[in-house]
Structures are given as structure tokens and as C-alpha cells.
């Protein structure tokens, strides 16, 4: 007896559940998904939204990517920063970006930030937190600038300034002491850079450079690596030898062709026009 076939399948293969539960009961530790420690922030200013993120992706205690991009594209004037499991944030934001584009084509209107937020929260709630994506969603649409935060279990907040990730406390400390309503663009960008820098220097899971994205009603500016406080110093010693350091000792040329004879087959190189 098969289920009614009008419904679409969840898309995932659960055939190993019995085996995994059995192994887990026997004491085998389930593999932990690689999660990124992160500092991601968003802040509302006079003309729109500034989003910021660090650029380190970790795999346990190892830095997996020194310059990864955590500010994902949703639509032209909506971006989403992602903390948590890197694959989950990338896949979720890509899926919602595609769905937003389809929705915008179908409705004929510019997409709204609340639409993206609703799609994301409904999807994350459906997966009961197993999709480990903590997101900061910000953008400007026809109703104005909006900034949301979405937690892995599907709860959302609408706030003027938000931070997420392992470095969120350090960044929030900077925001709490520095944020004011109706800031200018430069002031907001400096505040975001300071908040991310606080996360980079005080949290092990965040590091490398600062990415920022400024979204206003007319334009979206993606400032990749706007601040690089962790540039590697030039190595003092060089391991390459200068050309001409050693002269040759000996030169010997050995011809691999011992004897060569050419035997024409057929009529040779002429074209066969028979």
C-alpha cells in the first residue's frame, strides 16, 4: 500500500536511519556536521541596511577556508548572511533565492524582504532545527528597509541591529554602545567594521577579513574584504635559489633515434582519386 502520490517527497533518503540508530546505541559517535564559527551583523541606518560578516570557515579546530563569502545573494536588493553549518546556509539561501526569483516573475513585483523571511522560517521550522542555518536577512524593498534574524529552529526577530554566530556577543557589545538611530553611511559602515573586528579578534571561530554590504533603495554595494586586519607578513627568508647560483658540471646529449628509414606505402602522399 503506497501513500497517495499527489504529495512530493521530502527529497532526502532516510534508508539508513535504522542502521544509524543501531550504531549509535552501540556507542559509535555520530559524525558531527562541520559548523562555522562566525560573526555576522546587520544594522539599520538612515538610507538602508549595512550587513557585515567575517570570512573564516572552520572545520572543528582547523581553518577550512581563510576567505570564504558569508553574505549570500537572495535578490538584487536583499542579502542574507549565514552562520552555522556552511553547507546548510549556502543551500538554503540558494534555494530561497531561486524561489524568490520565480515568485517575483510570477507576481510582476519587486520582491519583499518579508517574503524571503517567511520562506526561510517555514523551511527551517519544517526541518526542526536539523538544518543548522542561523541567518541575518536584510534588504530594502518597496516598503522600506528591513532587517531580520532567523534562528535554526525557525524563530525570527525584526530588529534595528542584530548579530549572530559564535562572535555575536563581542559584536553586540560594540553595537550596544555605538548604535544610534538614523546614522550616516560612513558612521554605520565604521560601526559594522568595528563590530566584526571585535568578533575577529575576540572569538576563535571568527577571523581573517571583514566583508560588508550596503543596501539602499537605489543600489547595493558589495564590499568584499573591505578591511583586512590579518594580512600575512612577507616571509623574511626566501627558499628559491637565484638563477646562476651553480654552474653546470657536465652536458651529455644522447640521440634516441638510432637509425631511420622511410618506406612509402601505396602511392605515397598523393590523393587517391580513383
Amino acid at each position: 500500500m503506497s501513500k497517495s502520490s499527489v504529495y512530493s517527497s521530502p527529497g532526502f533518503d532516510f534508508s539508513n536511519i535504522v542502521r544509524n540508530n543501531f550504531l549509535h546505541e552501540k556507542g559509535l559517535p555520530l559524525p558531527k556536521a562541520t559548523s562555522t564559527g562566525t560573526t555576522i551583523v546587520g544594522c539599520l541606518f538612515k538610507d538602508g541596511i549595512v550587513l557585515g560578516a567575517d570570512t573564516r570557515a572552520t572545520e572543528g579546530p582547523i581553518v577550512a577556508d581563510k576567505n570564504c563569502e558569508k553574505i549570500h545573494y537572495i535578490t538584487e536588493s536583499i542579502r542574507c548572511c549565514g552562520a552555522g553549518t556552511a553547507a546548510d546556509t549556502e543551500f538554503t539561501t540558494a534555494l530561497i533565492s531561486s524561489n524568490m526569483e520565480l515568485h517575483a516573475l510570477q507576481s510582476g513585483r519587486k520582491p519583499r524582504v518579508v517574503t524571503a523571511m517567511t520562506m526561510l522560517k517555514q523551511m527551517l521550522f519544517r526541518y526542526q532545527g536539523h538544518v543548522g542555518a542561523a541567518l541575518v536577512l536584510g534588504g530594502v524593498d518597496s516598503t522600506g528597509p528591513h532587517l531580520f534574524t532567523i534562528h535554526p529552529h525557525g524563530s525570527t526577530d525584526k530588529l534595528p541591529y542584530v548579530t549572530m554566530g559564535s562572535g555575536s556577543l563581542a559584536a553586540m557589545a560594540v553595537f550596544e554602545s555605538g548604535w544610534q538611530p538614523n546614522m550616516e553611511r560612513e558612521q554605520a559602515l565604521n560601526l559594522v567594521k568595528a563590530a566584526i573586528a571585535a568578533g575577529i579578534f575576540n572569538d576563535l571561530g571568527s577571523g581573517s577579513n571583514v566583508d560588508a554590504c550596503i543596501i539602499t533603495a537605489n543600489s547595493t554595494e558589495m564590499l568584499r574584504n573591505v578591511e583586512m586586519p590579518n594580512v600575512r607578513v612577507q616571509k623574511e627568508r626566501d627558499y628559491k635559489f637565484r638563477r646562476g647560483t651553480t654552474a653546470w658540471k657536465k652536458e651529455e646529449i644522447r640521440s634516441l633515434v638510432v637509425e631511420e628509414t622511410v618506406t612509402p606505402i601505396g602511392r605515397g602522399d598523393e590523393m587517391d582519386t580513383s
Partner: protein
Amino acid sequence: MSLRIVPANAQKSASVQDTAGSFGLHDTLQYGPRSIAVEVKSQGTLKERLENWEETQDNLKLNLQRNAHGIHLPMRVLMERKLVTSHPNFMGTSNLHLDVLMGRDETIEPADVFLGMESSNPLDIRKEFEKRYKA
């Protein structure tokens, strides 16, 4: 009449129904030998939640339609769906009319990304034929 939004955690006992073949018994050819571990269902895992999600939401909508407009409306909706699934398509596996009726013709789901076209295995086509010639 339940207005559940989220699938319930049903505690089922051991059952052979999921793997039953046409005789009503466990179908060893398709699913392998019987084992108690597979048949005893555990309570509410992610798998059941995801599999029953769309059905639960659909039941909610149909119940609300019945409350607002009367029994005829969910009846028509289900009739349209049945009409659309009654004719099996042998070339493709994606039923566009069904997608339009279910409201998922303009969305992309994880199932579209991960499963694609290979969700119909050859055994299912034999089942489709069985269904056609049985009734």
C-alpha cells in the same frame, strides 16, 4: 476534524503494510528479508515529519475550505486531483497539471534538486500497470 498544522508523532506498532506486495504479505523480492527492527516504528522522527508535512498542511486547507464553503469545495478539489492523476504518463515522471493544482508549479523544493528525474524506478511502472488493470 483536525486542524493540525504540524504532523503528529504517531506511535505505531509493528506493521507489515508498508512492505506488502499484492498478496498482502511482506514482499521479500522488493524489500529484502523481514526484520523486526525495520517493522517496529519509533516515535516521531524527522523522516515522518517531512513525509507527512505536505499532507498535513493539505488536510488543514481542505478542512478550512469545508468549514467555510461546505463539503462541495474539498470534494471538487480532490476530484480535480484524481482526474489529473488518472492518466499515467509513460514518458515523463513529472505531472505538470498536478503541480499546478497542488500549487508547486512555481517553486523549487529540495526534492527537485536532489532527486530530479530518477525518482521513478522501473518497478513503479509495473505497479502503475497493476493499478490500471485491477480496477
